């Protein structure tokens, strides 16, 4: 079909082209004919013009000759009246026209002339019979002046008898003066030829082309390459007959018109030539103009064609682009439809999963609640059931948290809370959470930190924590028992001195993923489904949340995995380095400027060196206990302020070596063993000055341990945390609209030995507080979403009250609005702290103990 369309297009183009060619051929033929007609007419006109010019010249010459003859007759009449004609002749001076005047008396052969003495008419040749106005004219000759001349003779008649003959010599130069300086823009040549002798008696005065053929007719023919015998004979005959002739001939490559114009009945001839282009100048101009017009029209036409062509091309291009756009749109629509369908399917699947995942713990809660009701009398059963109900509830809570996270991230409502944190805390907290999980599954959990230059960084620690927990809990989940989990934190080369670039790697040797699943791993509502992983509970939202958070932080995440070989997640983040690291001061204040580190892991040693240098502490590295002993001995007791020993040294060289080292160190010198959490340390070596520092090495952790030693040294007593956090004897005002929640709260507090008064909304809470005596309530527990007046307004109202404790009474938000923004809003409203529901009793106790004053 398309081919046929193309073919018809081509045919159309060819026929259009042919039509244009035909139109142009017709136009060309018309222009050519018109030009030719004009040329022919102009040529005829030019020839007519030329012949008229020649006629004019002929008439001029004949007029001069006739006047000469007439004047000569008058002179003859005058002479006849003189008694001594010779005397009369001698009185004449030579003039420009009559260069010699001679008189020969009748019957004599010699006479006199006005120029020199004797004159004989016999030297002159009148045999040709040429006449001018009835007077015989001689053949042309070169005269005494070296120029061409002719003589006319006139009888001097007195009383009817011829008494003498008057000879007057004229020069052709006279005729030259009567002729135009040149015609046809001086491109026409003009000779005067004596017809009898065929000699050129007057020649053009110039150069160039006129250098040829000036001698006689033969020379003229030869110079102008006129060799056609027939033509020459015809010319010869015409000259003999005294006819005017004109013919075309090429002279020096130019088509010329040669003319021979009879003067004075053929005794003289005007001979010459003119290039045809010179006489057809007007015709040529007209033709040139016609061609210019045609050319301009053609150029304009072609320009129009070009414009039309470009326009068409542009149109086609736009059409094509539109078609392409349409196609892209269609494709996008199809893709969107497909995506929507997939999303819909995913959500259906998700809902189905959720339904399943929520129902399962709910089933457990309801089931165990039923069992609880039945076995309420049996404390062991009750404890067991409540434990299981608690676990199911926790699981449900995590499910809900994940769903909310995804929803918030997708709607762009997540705000990062950037604060200073230490990598030590981050790693410690992650380690604390993940290690038990790994241990439970008998997996080995390796933590490695290398190349980190700055430990204190700015970032959202909670979210980074979330990322790591997500990745690591997945690794634990999707790795078989006794497998390995690696958690690496690698300092990369900085792109900017203000940012620490960190790569976090989470690797396992677990089940791995299929390439298909890798493609959608970061999409929400997906979960690897197979017989192995079905046992694993989850929302399928973790990775989507992780990716979104990483990207929110301007980082990248990628994953590589192979089924049954394991998975590697790589997260790269750039975290700002806080200005002015305060902990530098700590080391200076504690007078620690140089430490000795013993270890055989070069990378770890380098890491320590870098980190310590950052806080202004020099680290001398030795690779064995012996060398460390030697170093300690070589330097006095004050040289090193601390000794840091990698526990690997003990593993490699034996505990005795370590003990020797410990003994060598001065008694006051604190010794730290850097060991894995699960390393079995010999308790005998631990003393007041010897502490264990968990791997990986962090300055902040190091610092804490030093503080610990100092604290022990100061023998400061540590408060019993449990006692501190006790709620015993406290009295709370609680605003809670949900009866069940209110009940739970009351029960929990009563278990802890506290009591509480519950009101149903914020308004009632404000009113109750107004009525209350000072210090009647230790704190107010405030729900946020309540009828009549919400928690925020209530808090503001309380804080605005005009009583002394209105500004100081702790108000604790207890709400299901669990996000950072909610927390911020709560604090803005004047609340002291924000706790998310469901209530974690321990956390509540800790917070209350922190804010409630006077409890001690």
């Amino acid at each position, binding site marked *: 079909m398309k081919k046929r369309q193309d073919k018809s297009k081509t045919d159309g183009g060819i026929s259009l082209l042919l039509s244009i060619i035909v139109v142009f051929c017709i136009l060309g033929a018309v222009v050519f004919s018109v030009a030719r007609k004009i040329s022919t007419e102009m040529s005829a006109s030019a020839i007519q013009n030329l012949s008229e010019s020649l006629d004019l010249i002929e008439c001029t010459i004949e007029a001069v000759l006739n006047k000469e003859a007439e004047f000569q007759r008058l002179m003859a009449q005058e002479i006849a009246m003189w008694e001594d004609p010779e005397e009369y002749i001698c009185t004449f001076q030579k003039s420009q026209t009559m260069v010699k005047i001679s008189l020969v008396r009748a019957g004599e052969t010699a006479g006199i002339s006005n120029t020199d003495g004797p004159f004989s008419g016999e030297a002159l040749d009148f045999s040709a019979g040429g006449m001018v106005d009835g007077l015989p004219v001689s053949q042309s000759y070169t005269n005494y002046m*070296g120029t061409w001349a002719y003589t006319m003779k006139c009888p001097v008649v007195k009383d009817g008898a011829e008494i003498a003959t008057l000879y007057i010599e004229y020069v052709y130069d006279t005729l030259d003066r009567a002729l135009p300086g040149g015609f046809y823009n001086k491109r026409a040549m003009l000779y005067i030829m004596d017809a009898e002798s065929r000699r050129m008696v007057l020649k053009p*005065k110039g*150069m160039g082309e006129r250098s040829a053929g000036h*001698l006689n007719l033969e020379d003229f023919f030869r110079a102008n390459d006129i060799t056609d015998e027939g033509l020459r004979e015809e010319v010869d005959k015409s000259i003999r007959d005294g006819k005017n002739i004109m013919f075309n001939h090429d002279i020096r490559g130019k088509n010329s018109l040669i003319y021979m114009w009879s003067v004075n009945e053929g005794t003289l001839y005007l001979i010459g030539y003119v290039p045809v282009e010179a006489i057809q100048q007007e015709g040529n101009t007209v033709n040139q103009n016609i061609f210019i017009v045609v050319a*301009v029209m053609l150029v304009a036409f072609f320009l129009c064609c070009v414009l039309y062509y470009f326009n068409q091309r542009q149109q086609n291009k736009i059409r094509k682009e539109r078609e392409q756009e349409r196609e892209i749109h269609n494709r996008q629509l199809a893709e969107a439809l497909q995506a929507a369908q997939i999303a819909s399917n995913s959500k259906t699947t998700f809902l189905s999963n959720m339904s399943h995942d929520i129902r399962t713990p709910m089933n457990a809660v309801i089931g165990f609640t039923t069992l609880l009701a039945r076995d309420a009398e049996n404390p062991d059963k009750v404890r067991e059931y409540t434990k299981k109900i608690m676990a199911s509830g926790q699981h449900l809570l995590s499910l809900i948290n994940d769903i909310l996270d995804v929803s918030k991230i997708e709607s762009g409502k997540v705000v990062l809370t950037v604060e200073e944190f230490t990598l030590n805390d981050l790693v410690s907290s992650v380690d604390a959470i993940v290690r038990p999980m790994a241990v439970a599954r008998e997996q080995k959990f390796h933590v490695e930190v290398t190349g980190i230059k700055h430990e204190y960084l700015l970032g959202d620690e909670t979210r980074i924590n979330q990322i790591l927990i997500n990745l690591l809990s997945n690794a634990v989940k999707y790795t078989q028992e006794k497998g390995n989990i690696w958690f690496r934190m690698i300092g990369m080369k900085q792109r900017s001195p203000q940012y620490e670039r960190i790569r976090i790697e989470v690797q396992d040797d677990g089940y791995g993923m299929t390439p298909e699943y890798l493609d959608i791993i970061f999409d929400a509502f997906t979960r690897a489904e197979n017989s192995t992983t079905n046992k694993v509970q989850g929302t399928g939202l973790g990775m989507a949340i992780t990716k979104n958070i990483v990207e929110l932080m301007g980082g990248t995440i990628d994953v590589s995995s192979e089924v049954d070989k394991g998975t590697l997640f790589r997260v790269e983040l750039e975290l700002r380095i806080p200005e002015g690291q305060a902990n530098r001061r700590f080391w200076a204040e504690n007078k620690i400027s140089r430490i000795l580190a013993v270890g055989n892991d070069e990378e770890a040693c380098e890491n320590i060196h870098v980190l310590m240098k950052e806080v202004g502490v020099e680290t001398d590295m030795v690779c064995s206990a012996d060398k460390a002993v030697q170093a300690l001995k070589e330097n006095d007791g004050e040289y090193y302020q601390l000794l840091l020993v990698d526990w690997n040294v003990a593993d490699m060289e034996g505990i005795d070596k370590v003990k020797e080292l410990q003994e060598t160190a001065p008694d006051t010198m604190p010794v730290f063993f850097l060991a894995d959490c699960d390393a079995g340390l010999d308790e005998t070596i631990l003393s007041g000055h010897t502490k264990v520092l968990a791997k990986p090495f962090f300055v902040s952790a190091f610092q804490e341990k030093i503080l610990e030693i100092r604290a022990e040294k100061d023998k400061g007593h540590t408060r019993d945390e449990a006692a501190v956090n006790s709620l015993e004897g406290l009295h709370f005002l609680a605003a809670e609209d949900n009866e069940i929640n209110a009940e739970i709260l009351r029960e929990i507090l009563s278990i802890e030995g506290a009591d509480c008064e519950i009101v149903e909304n914020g308004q009632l809470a404000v009113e109750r507080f107004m009525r209350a005596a000072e210090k009647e309530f230790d704190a107010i527990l405030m729900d946020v979403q309540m009828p009549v007046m919400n928690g925020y307004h209530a808090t503001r109202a309380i804080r605005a009250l005009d009583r002394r404790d209105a500004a100081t009474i702790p108000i604790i938000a207890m709400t299901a609005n669990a996000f950072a923004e909610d927390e911020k809003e709560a604090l803005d409203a004047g609340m002291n702290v924000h706790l998310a529901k469901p209530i974690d009793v321990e956390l509540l106790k800790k917070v209350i103990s922190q804010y409630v004053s006077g409890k001690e």
Partner: protein
Amino acid sequence: MDMRKNHKEKVAATCLAGLAALVLTACSGGLPEDNVMTFEKESERIVTLFSPMEKTKPDVDNVARSASEKTVVMAEEKLGVTVDYITYTAEDYQDKTYDDIALDRARNDMDDLYLLNPDVIQKLAGEGKLMDLSGLDSAKNLRDVVKAANIVDGRLVAIPQEVVAYGLFVNKDLFDKYHLALPETPEEFLECCRVFQENGIETPVGANRWWLETFVLAQAYAELYNGGNTEAEIAALNSGEKKYSDYMRPGFEFLQEMIDRGYIDAGKAYVSEAIDGEGADFLAQKTPIVMAYWGAANTPTAYGNPDFNMLVIGFPSSMGQMPVMPMTGIAVGVNALHAEDAMRTLDIMVSDEALQVYAETNKVISPSKNVAVDCIPALKPLNDRINENVFVLGSNASMKLEQWGNTCIIVRMLLSGSTVDECMAEFDRLQAETLEH
């Protein structure tokens, strides 16, 4: 995309606008608004130059003429004058010669500038018909020998555009064919002619009625001009102490012998114009030797394009090959109608700048001491002799008896049957005339 489209449209619009402007401009020349048209009469400053023209062949440029024309154009451009050429060429030997016409025209003050042969220069200068050119700037650049040859009664009467040197044009191929060395002396020359004749070349020397005198002059004055006593010998001739006929006799006897042996066809030579008579046979390699002037070797209408190895050598003499150098020149008529412009025109035509152009175009020896150009290989033998300062002057204004014209006429007497003695008697008569004046 849009930018590009706009660009194309702009280009197309500009083209159309340009086209329209072009057409409108081209067609804008209309009729003058004023109905009465006036025409200024052109007033031309004319200088007339009388010079010869040879009979011409179609589509052939005369090199010498072209060279001269370049200098004329130079003068026309610098002075704003127009040089009108007046020419004369004799149809045959019965016609008046160019020299006759030149004499007539100069005596009747017909023209302003004249290109003259040395004898005519001497005659007209003697009659006081030529202007003194020694005041021209260009005269200062002339070689001494050129000046000397054109000074009559202390007046510089003509200045040439080239130093004309005559020599023998020989067909080297034919000399080689018959194992002949190029002749140095009259005896060797006769021997060459004998060998040629024996080998079927009946008339080894092609001649015309003008240039046979060069043989005579070469033999007559070889020792006078190259013997180191030139001025004294000329003084002796001018005073009558020595006779021209004594110098001339060997040359005439030599010519007579040539004629007698049939090496020269005297009858044909007597009626032949220069090159016209003998040129065709020489070019056809029927005649191995002709005589001509330097420029003929450069001129396509003369011997410029031979089909054989041509060399130009000096004439045989007792002192070896001898170039003969008559001095033609351009003169200004004393009563010239446009004398002032004529003098200025000549000054430019013979300036160093013009002579450089002339010499380069025509490959000739320049009369200016400041101008030198290379010659063609054929002319090298002749040029070498001239560079060695070995030559005979064909005309010398310091000799009271005009040489170039008179010798030519007396050689014609020999050609027409007079004896050597009669010819010598004519020299004696002419010398006697000079002594009488």
